[in-house]
């Protein structure tokens, strides 16, 4: 965990006071709605279909049990007793009252939580691998760099009014769990030939109506130069990014219009002129941040404790373990994913009671630490293997042991037309229906398969990069859904391919079942994942199966 010091806490409190003043001036009419809108967005407050929505940052997906309890408290006291975890390591509350927001923020600030730059045309909450610091084989803990970037991007005096939103993600593993290739800037931590730590810098990824996979702009930027290099990218974007059309304002369009070589040249030119700037991070500056991350005092534990051997006899436990438990860098420990995708439930939602209970379990089994991933699930990052059977029983009682992590019913979905003012179609009920179509045995037989649902082209459900992507559109006042297959968000990120004409709301679940059945018949062996079958055979056989009888 990163420990905020007095300076961090002061800044967060100063931001709360500023926002309190802004809300007061809005309520008194001193600020127009036009003026206030931008100010509230800079602090994560949207006006949605039914109420204000409030998005709170969970920087690089790390939470303490104390912080999670406070999130639960806010859900209970200021909302309707639940929250929604998003695809960018945030939590959203859907029923907040504007006049009460400053108090909610003040309560969050007490535990070092804020909502700065969770929306608006600025540098958004910096995200990272939810297994950062515990996954085996990492170059180093990417959260150190995430925190350096979090500080640098917070209330930046030059880049708080960019052409459009700007998202940065960092990974330090070969397998990318942070989806860096669909971010405005993706940073992959690695070492050069001299063993020095730095970053491959990717730029111009993003989804929405013009999706792009990020391109590498520089294969290696030394860690000490990462702030100046990022600043050079931002400065080029701030000056030359389009401001005439909101749909063409993201950096991906600038990169596309200039071409990556020309864009890279502009950035290099700016970077060169910046020279050895005050942004250069010397070793002691990096160590300063590193020193404020604390790690658990792990015990020396056996690789295979007796408790685990005994529990293996229980097929229900085994099924959960196979899907939810991942290797830890320390022997005898595991990373446990808590599915927020119960059968029939809205993906990513957690009740206040569940949050409190998870906080208690984190204290008991995970050194008081919780993680939030872009797949809209939670994780306990340091669970001793001997505790897995007990933890499983406790999670099962809470409805948080659905054995579907990474399976067909572990669906990523945006809030859709049930909440969102931008949506054309519903997302949540589609996800709920799909979780009922595939029982746990079938899901296990199918294997890894990510379904992503967005209720409109803005793509908050990342439908382009779902193994199966479902996009809600509106045709003559009716909800229709376009289906894509073969997308992925990892180190081999690519966009899915449309299989054919959009289908009606009532047909979506049937169509997905057809696609999955086609896959089961077509895969050359049980281990061939859905995306690999699509890659091998293309969309045709799936298209035939879906449209032959429709």
């Amino acid at each position, binding site marked *: 965990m990163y420990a905020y010091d007095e300076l961090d806490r002061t800044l967060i409190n100063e931001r709360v006071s500023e926002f309190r003043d802004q809300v007061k001036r809005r309520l008194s009419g001193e600020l127009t709605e036009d003026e206030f809108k931008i100010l509230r967005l800079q602090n994560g407050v949207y006006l949605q279909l039914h109420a204000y929505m409030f998005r709170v940052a969970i920087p690089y997906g790390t939470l303490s049990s104390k912080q999670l309890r406070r999130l639960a408290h806010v859900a209970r006291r200021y909302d309707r007793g639940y929250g929604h975890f998003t695809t960018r390591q945030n939590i959203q509350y859907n029923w907040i009252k504007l006049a009460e927001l400053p108090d909610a923020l003040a309560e969050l600030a007490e535990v070092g939580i804020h909502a700065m730059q969770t929306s608006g045309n600025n540098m958004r909450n910096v995200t990272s691998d939810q297994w950062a610091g515990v996954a085996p084989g990492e170059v180093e803990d990417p959260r150190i760099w995430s925190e350096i970037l979090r500080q*640098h991007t917070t209330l930046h*005096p030059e880049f708080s*009014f960019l052409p459009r939103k700007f998202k940065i993600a960092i990974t330090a593993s070969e397998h990318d769990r942070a989806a860096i290739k669909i971010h405005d800037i993706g940073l992959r931590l690695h070492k050069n030939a001299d063993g020095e730590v730095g970053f491959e810098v990717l730029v111009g990824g993003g989804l929405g109506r013009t999706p792009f996979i990020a391109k590498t702009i520089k294969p290696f930027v030394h860690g000490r130069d990462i702030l100046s290099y990022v600043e050079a990218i931002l400065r080029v974007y701030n000056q030359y990014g389009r*401001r005439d059309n909101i749909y063409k304002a993201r950096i991906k369009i600038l990169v596309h219009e200039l071409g990556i070589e020309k864009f890279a040249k502009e950035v290099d030119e700016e970077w060169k002129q910046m020279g050895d700037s005050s*942004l250069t991070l010397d070793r002691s500056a990096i160590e300063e941040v590193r020193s404020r991350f604390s790690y658990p005092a792990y015990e020396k534990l056996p690789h295979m404790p007796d408790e685990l051997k005994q529990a293996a006899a229980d097929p229900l436990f085994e099924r959960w373990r196979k899907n939810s438990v991942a290797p830890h860098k320390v022997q005898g420990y595991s990373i446990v994913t808590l599915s927020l995708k119960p059968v029939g439930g809205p993906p990513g939602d957690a009740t206040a009671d569940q949050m409190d209970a998870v906080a208690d379990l984190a204290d008991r089994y995970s050194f008081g630490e919780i993680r939030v991933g872009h797949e809209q699930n939670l994780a306990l990052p340091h669970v001793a293997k001997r505790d897995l059977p007990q933890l499983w029983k406790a999670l099962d009682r809470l409805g948080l042991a659905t054995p579907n992590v990474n399976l067909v019913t572990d669906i990523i979905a945006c809030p859709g037309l049930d909440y969102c003012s931008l949506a054309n179609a519903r997302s949540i009920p589609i996800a709920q229906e799909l979780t009922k179509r595939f029982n746990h045995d079938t899901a296990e037989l199918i294997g890894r398969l990510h379904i992503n649902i967005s209720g409109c082209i803005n793509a908050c459900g990342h439908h382009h990069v779902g193994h199966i992507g479902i996009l809600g559109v509106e045709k003559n006042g009716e909800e229709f859904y376009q289906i894509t297959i073969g997308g992925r968000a990892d180190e081999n990120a690519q966009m899915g391919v449309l299989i054919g004409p959009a289908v009606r709301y009532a047909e979506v679940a049937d169509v997905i079942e057809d696609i999955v059945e086609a896959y089961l018949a077509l895969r050359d062996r049980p281990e061939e994942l859905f995306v690999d079958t699509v890659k091998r055979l293309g969309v045709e056989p799936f298209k035939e199966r879906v449209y032959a009888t429709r």
Partner: protein
Amino acid sequence: MPLVKNATIVADPFVHVAEGAELPGDGAILISAERFLADPEALSRRAGKTGVIWPNNRPVDDLVPYLDRLAAVALVFPTFRDGRAYSQARLLRERHGYDGELRATGQILRDQFVFMTRAGFDTFEVKKDADAHAFAETMKRYSVFYQPTGDGRLTALHRRMQQRHSESAGQ
């Protein structure tokens, strides 16, 4: 429209000269970039200070050769949502060493005062009277800053390092 300079409301010594209007014989003037660049020499011979209003879509590099003869540069925020002039301001101050008046003009509102000051602006054509009167108070909103800019305010990191240094020196 009140003018705030160095955190106080002051009378504006500069006259905005409209496009095509005749230049006054003396006194301080603010003119468009085009008009200035058309004949910078003539303007230098004129009695009275010259300031230029520089659009936010033109590189400040074009202005750099003339910085030493300008009394003011006014950068433009067509709306407060358009943040290009923040980059221009920092480039003028931090890269090109401009130390004359740097004026923010356009939709200048209270909630951007801190950002603008940090980017190097020292003079503000403020839209609303109440905002102008609240300038000094607004500048007190923040005491902690994460980014180094040319305004010289110490960053959180600097303060931490200093603290470490003094702690280890005391041991």
